[in-house]
């Protein structure tokens, strides 16, 4: 992400438009990540905005040891989790998400067969029952092009700890999915 460095430097020297360009570039990625645990789209949009405001405040601490994207993800992870804890909306998040997705009626939904749909519904409920940090962890793990060391950095864990936790979450989901 070396192409971000000029914009980061401009932002640090007071150019807010350069920061606007960074926001435009990463807002979708951050939104997708936080949407995973936020109750509604509006909630996720609010958290996304908070993430970028926090990132702006902390930009001087960005040392470039991780990529800017990973650094942003770390802020997004902490912001989203604290938001969920504050609003305590996670309990109902699954229902709201389900309803919204059902009403959206995307082509992907229509193509799914009923068996798969039932399986997905079970999974959705199981994932919604996970604590916010575990839920983010598993979402990050299945996020495209995300390496384990990046996942560990974002969640503030060691690589081995992240691996163990992901293994346990997957095992838990697998056990709950398998017929008794």
């Amino acid at each position, binding site marked *: 992400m070396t192409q971000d460095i000029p914009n980061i430097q401009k932002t640090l020297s007071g150019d807010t438009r350069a920061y606007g360009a960074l926001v435009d570039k990463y*807002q979708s990625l951050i939104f997708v990540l936080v949407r*995973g645990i936020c109750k509604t789209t509006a909630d996720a949009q609010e958290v996304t905005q908070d993430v970028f405001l926090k990132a702006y405040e902390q930009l001087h601490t960005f040392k470039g040891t991780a990529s800017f994207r990973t650094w942003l993800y770390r802020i997004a992870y902490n912001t989203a989790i604290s938001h969920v804890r504050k609003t305590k909306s996670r309990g109902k998040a699954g229902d709201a998400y389900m309803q919204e997705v059902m009403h959206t009626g995307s082509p*992907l939904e229509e193509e799914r067969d009923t068996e798969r749909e039932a399986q997905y519904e079970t999974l959705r409920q199981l994932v919604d029952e996970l604590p916010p940090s575990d839920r983010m962890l598993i979402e990050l793990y299945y996020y495209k092009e995300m390496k384990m060391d990046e996942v560990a950095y974002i969640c503030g864990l060691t690589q081995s700890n992240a691996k163990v936790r992901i293994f346990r979450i997957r095992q838990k989901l697998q056990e709950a999915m398998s017929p008794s």
Partner: protein
Amino acid sequence: MDTLRDFFEDKRRETEQEAVLIPPMGAQLAAMIETRQIARRKHDLYWWIAGGLVFVLGAIGAGLYFRTYVAAFFERIAEIVVQIIGNITDYLKITGTSLAAGLSGARETAGSGFIEKATAEVSGWPVQVWYVVFLVGGVALLLGVDRLVRHRKPA
């Protein structure tokens, strides 16, 4: 477990479709940050002005109220300053005299071996000279370290 992977990938795709519909927030956020910064600067300025005024007024008020104590306090300060300046002047005078005496000693012993002369000379220096030498050396060392730290190249 492919079902899990498929589930999360489908979920992500759905969320990405949602993300596409969100208008870019870069310009809006930049404007918001600018507004906040202006408000913060104003707030800080008002606090500095108010704090400064309160401090000055408080100092004036306290000075007037406790004027006898303040006068005594400043007199004591003046005494201490005069005493310190006197001590420093005496110290410098003694150091100057010692250095002058040492230099004349060095001239008198010229002609014999250099190392012997230098050793005799250095060992004959009074303690005040050593203070000055170590003080200058210490300051030079600190300045050198400071320069090195400030001018180091990032890794």
